[in-house]
């Protein structure tokens, strides 16, 4: 059975990420973000959202574990910040209903959602520039980088919340990530 750890960055939806994976039959645990990287034993990681980029524990170190990593909301911003991309506050906060346009239909994480998908979001900050080696894979009217991928390193992120019930094809995103971990 594929094992995925959800790294808890104190987001209110962290438990829904666990639930989404649990409902797909994945062996999944919520793991404290202060866990030493050498103690992580999983086929893939989800970096949860959260309220504060200063409370991300050891998340930066997990990017070097050589397993697929999927950052959600703050989790994606952690990846961007750590790998020298740029994160800043958006002109327009993204809350609730957002229509996301998938800009790369071959992307293994979000490509299957092309051409567009209705999602639920909750963020004030956003990724302004993706790090070197990454492609922007989705955008919306309220946010320039709704998703990004580095397929060579298997690092992925979305700005919205695939784990909440109101995101239309959220499960599909987790299924795509699961395929990358298997």
């Amino acid at each position, binding site marked *: 059975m594929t094992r995925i750890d959800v790294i808890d960055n104190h987001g209110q939806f962290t438990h*829904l990420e666990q639930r989404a994976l649990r409902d797909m039959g994945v062996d999944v645990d919520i793991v404290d973000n202060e866990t030493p990287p050498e103690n992580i034993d999983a086929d893939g990681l989800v970096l949860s959202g959260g309220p504060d980029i200063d409370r991300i524990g050891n998340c930066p170190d997990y990017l070097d574990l050589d397993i697929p990593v999927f950052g959600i909301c703050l989790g994606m911003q952690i990846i961007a910040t750590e790998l020298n991309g740029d994160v800043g506050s958006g002109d327009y906060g993204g809350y609730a209903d957002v229509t996301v346009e998938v800009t790369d239909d071959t992307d293994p994480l979000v490509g299957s959602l092309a051409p567009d998908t209705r999602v639920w979001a909750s963020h004030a900050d956003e990724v302004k520039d993706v790090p070197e080696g990454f492609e922007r894979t989705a955008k919306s009217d309220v946010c320039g980088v709704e998703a990004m991928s580095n397929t060579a390193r298997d690092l992925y992120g979305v700005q919205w919340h695939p784990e909440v019930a109101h995101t239309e094809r959220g499960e599909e995103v987790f299924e795509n990530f699961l395929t990358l971990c298997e």
Partner: protein
Amino acid sequence: MVDVDPFIDEKIEEISESVGDANAVIGLSGGVDSSTAAALAYEAIGDQLTAVYVDTGLMRKGETDQIRETFDYMDSLRIIDAKDRFLDALEGETDPEEKRHIIGEQFIREFEEVARDVDADYLVQGTIYPDRIESEGTIKSHHNVGGLPERIDFAGIVEPMRDLYKDEVREVARKLDLESIIAERMPFPGPGLAVRILGEVTEEKLDVAREANHVVEEELTEYEPWQALAAVIGKATGVKGDNRVHGWVVAVRSVESRDGMTARAQEIDWETLQRIQSRITGENETVSRVVYDVTHKPPATIEYE
């Protein structure tokens, strides 16, 4: 999704094992969570369980009578009329978190009296997953998380549904043959109508909130909302029968959701909204205005405080 049959068997066994021959109490709010926890615990330990329902005076219209009827099968059910004590404790308080805190405290006092009286060693609670997340995240404090255990020296606390979401609790409730009115019942916050009244809780505002909530629930049944409510949010000018009224503003909210973690404001047809407006302003002399809340969660929460 929870696998209901093994879950029920497992929890009944777990409760029996934890409580043994001792006595246990559970606070019954009338909501689906505590009702389901009570039913599970009653299956497990029968009359060793005392279910306590505190009528805080902050309940919905007819709620107390309905509880009395639904839980008639439990000989040990106790209904406590504590309205005056709650309203006294809340007098003058306007801060939302402080209001929740006062209600939690008073609830504990009412409860500990019964717990001592029946010599209960165990506390059963209907705490579910989102209660714990929201309390940990300090978005809102839930009165069934924390509080009681510090005040009363229980040998143990049993929370059979601590890992479930609301929709999963409903599955369990259905399986336990809880009356559909409980299983399908809309979530109602622990602090009751107090969080649907912005600012100080007074008898006058409570009456308005109670009647308005009744109208909203009745009129919106066909929309099958996950939660529909009315809140007294302030005062504004109106004119009724040639007289100026500086009356209450009632906000109506109706949302659909799976688990309460996110919610979508429902699209209600104009005629229904007008009927709600007409009934609330017509039946309540002191209401001058009715508004409909179109905000999703996020950025808003479902309840107002």
